[in-house]
């Protein structure tokens, strides 16, 4: 080790130190001596920064600001779970004629799928029209299945209302009479009877006037294979009828319908022709002085207490919940409900003094009510303050929105409505529909018309009996149907599943054998006889709907237009069908969370 090598070593070390200091951002002059290096080192900026940041859902680089050497600490300001998800989509796939737009829904919704539904007539009773006829003082007529009676019986009379009915009670029936006496009660002991060759089914001795001038008389008729021949009525001497309306129904099963349905033959398809969007407030805010009569729903004038009433009928949904908002919380709100034909159904109580008539609460629409009128008691006054709102959603409590009425209509193009199978559907999971997103018409359901040339065969045990009822069994093979889902529909025979078919059965039905895809018919021998020829004769011309083994998809982009529709939160979307009934549809809303 020499002095020279030591000097070289020291010079090299000084140069390295100089470089290190310069790398830390401090300029070192070449004239700076080693004596100054300590102060240069002291001037190195070692300040660090503490930063607070908001966590994000994506990559973010956190760096010190200018003038800082580094970060001594990073503080995450709270924990982000999902703060950017202020909106979510929700799909409404209810099977419904009318739907309520959910709370929080934004201005536009997407119509995704629109389907159809097919149904046989619930009412088996096909009553021919009868021109006005007078018999012993009673005048009656029959039109479209509805019987209207007037007059005073001059003597006791057995009146045949319907003859030649010819319905076999194979699986059990429910006989129903919808009677509207318009509050003028005929005298008691008026009897209704369904006659058979063997006996009669006795319904009721009296037309019950009831509070709302309408009653439903029903009776279950146990399965006995008897043929129902006529409906008759025993009217005692002196009985008075004043526009008494009687609507008879005979339905399969044991559950009485709550609403009258007229008869129609075969299977009826209900296809969507348009979708209409309505605002939240279903009341048109048309207002006048007066009230309505609790006993008959007609306009009433209350001379000593001025009230204010709705001028026009308001459309409501049966069995639904409505919410009445009113700026005056002391005002009483009296509703009056009407059926499809604007006949008065009733109110909720008997008088405005009923405590349940307050506003800013919910009410249930009666099962047979389609329209509503109302008045507000004198507490509210006679000047409308733009603060009364009736909405069909109980979820919009305490909200007023101005009446908008019809917001937008989307009409299904005629070319689409004309597609074979448009509007057909067997149940909520098996139906034909427009699929907007892919611009296709999806056909899951087809139909088949039976004829004498079809290769219908008898089952190995063709005739089965339980000692009272006898049935003939036959089958038809070769229909390209779905063997897994077993969806099939026929007007004349109820559908039953394979498991039912395998058991001990005493009822007629149509079904599918999943082992071989055969369509199986089991029919009461009173109707279809006991031979192959008589069975084929009964089947001839009848139609059944079935689910296709392979759906058929057809491009319809050239017909479809924009599938979005303007809506209002808590408004209503109505799919106007050929016949008003539940129709499958899927609608997507963007909802604010």
């Amino acid at each position, binding site marked *: 080790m020499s002095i020279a090598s030591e000097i070289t070593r020291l010079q090299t070390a000084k140069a390295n130190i100089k470089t290190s200091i310069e790398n830390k951002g401090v300029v070192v002059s070449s004239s700076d001596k080693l004596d100054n290096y300590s102060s240069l080192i002291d001037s190195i900026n070692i300040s660090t920064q503490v930063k607070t940041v908001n966590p994000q*859902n994506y990559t973010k680089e956190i760096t010190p600001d200018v003038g800082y050497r580094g970060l001594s600490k990073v503080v995450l300001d709270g924990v982000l779970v999902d703060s950017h998800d202020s909106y979510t989509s929700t799909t409404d796939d209810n099977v419904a004629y009318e739907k309520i737009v959910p709370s929080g829904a934004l201005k536009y919704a997407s119509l995704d799928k629109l389907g159809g539904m097919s149904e046989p007539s619930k009412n088996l009773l096909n009553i021919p029209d009868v021109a006005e006829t007078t018999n012993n003082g009673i005048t009656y007529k029959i039109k479209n299945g509805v019987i209207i009676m007037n007059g005073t019986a001059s003597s006791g009379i057995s009146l045949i209302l319907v003859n030649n009915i010819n319905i076999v009670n194979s699986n059990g029936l429910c006989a129903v009479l919808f009677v509207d006496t318009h509050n003028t009660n005929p005298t008691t002991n008026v009897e209704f009877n369904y006659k058979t060759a063997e006996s009669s089914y006795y319904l009721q001795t009296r037309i019950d006037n009831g509070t709302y001038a309408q009653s439903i008389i029903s009776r279950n008729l146990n399965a006995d294979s008897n043929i129902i021949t006529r409906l008759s009525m025993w009217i005692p001497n002196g009985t008075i009828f004043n526009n008494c309306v009687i609507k008879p129904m005979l339905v399969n099963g044991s559950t009485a319908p709550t609403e009258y349905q007229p008869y129609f033959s075969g299977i009826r398809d209900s296809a969507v022709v348009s979708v209409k969007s309505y605002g939240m407030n279903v009341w048109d805010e048309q207002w006048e002085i007066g009230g309505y009569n609790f006993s008959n729903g007609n306009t009433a004038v209350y001379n000593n207490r001025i009230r204010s009433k709705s001028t026009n009928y308001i459309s409501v949904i049966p069995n639904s919940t409505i919410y009445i908002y009113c700026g005056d919380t002391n005002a009483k709100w009296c509703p009056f409900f009407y059926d499809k034909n604007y006949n008065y159904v009733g109110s909720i109580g008997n008088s405005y003094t009923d405590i349940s008539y307050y506003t800013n609460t919910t009410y249930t629409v009666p099962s047979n009510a389609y329209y509503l009128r109302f008045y507000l008691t004198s507490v509210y006054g006679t000047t409308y303050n733009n603060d009364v709102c009736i909405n069909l959603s109980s979820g919009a409590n305490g909200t007023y929105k101005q009446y908008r009425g019809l917001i937008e209509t989307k009409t299904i193009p005629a070319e689409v409505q004309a597609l074979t199978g448009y509007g057909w559907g067997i149940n909520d999971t098996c139906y034909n529909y427009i699929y907007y997103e892919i611009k296709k018409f999806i056909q899951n359901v087809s139909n088949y018309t039976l004829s004498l040339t079809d290769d219908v065969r008898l089952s190995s045990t063709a005739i089965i009996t339980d000692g009272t009822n006898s049935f003939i069994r036959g089958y038809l093979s070769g229909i390209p149907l779905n063997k897994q889902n077993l969806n099939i529909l026929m007007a004349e025979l109820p559908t039953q599943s394979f498991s039912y078919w395998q058991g001990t059965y005493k009822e007629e039905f149509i079904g599918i054998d999943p082992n071989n895809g055969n369509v199986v018919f089991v029919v009461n021998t009173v109707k279809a006889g006991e031979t192959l020829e008589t069975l084929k004769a009964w089947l001839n011309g009848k139609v059944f709907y079935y689910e296709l083994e392979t759906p058929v998809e057809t491009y319809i982009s050239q017909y479809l237009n924009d599938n979005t529709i303007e809506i209002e939160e808590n408004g209503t979307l109505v799919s106007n069908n050929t016949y008003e009934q539940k129709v499958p549809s899927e609608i997507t809303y963007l909802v604010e969370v």
Partner: protein
Amino acid sequence: MDKKEIELAILNGVADKVYPKLVRELINEKYSIYDELAIQRQRDTKPQEFIEYNNYCEYCKREAKRQLKLIPVESEL
């Protein structure tokens, strides 16, 4: 978010509010949250992986804006 939801968001004028949700979904198509944490942890030892990941995240942001029509198509970054 499917195509229908994106169209609804644009139509209803809330595309900017659902943008972060769509970006997250696009990132998650390739990287799970655990993948992202591992890449972040090994940022210095595996810099190339981080660069690829960061570039993909930037792509997702551009793609989400494009789908939601938040930027004109011609001026892609």
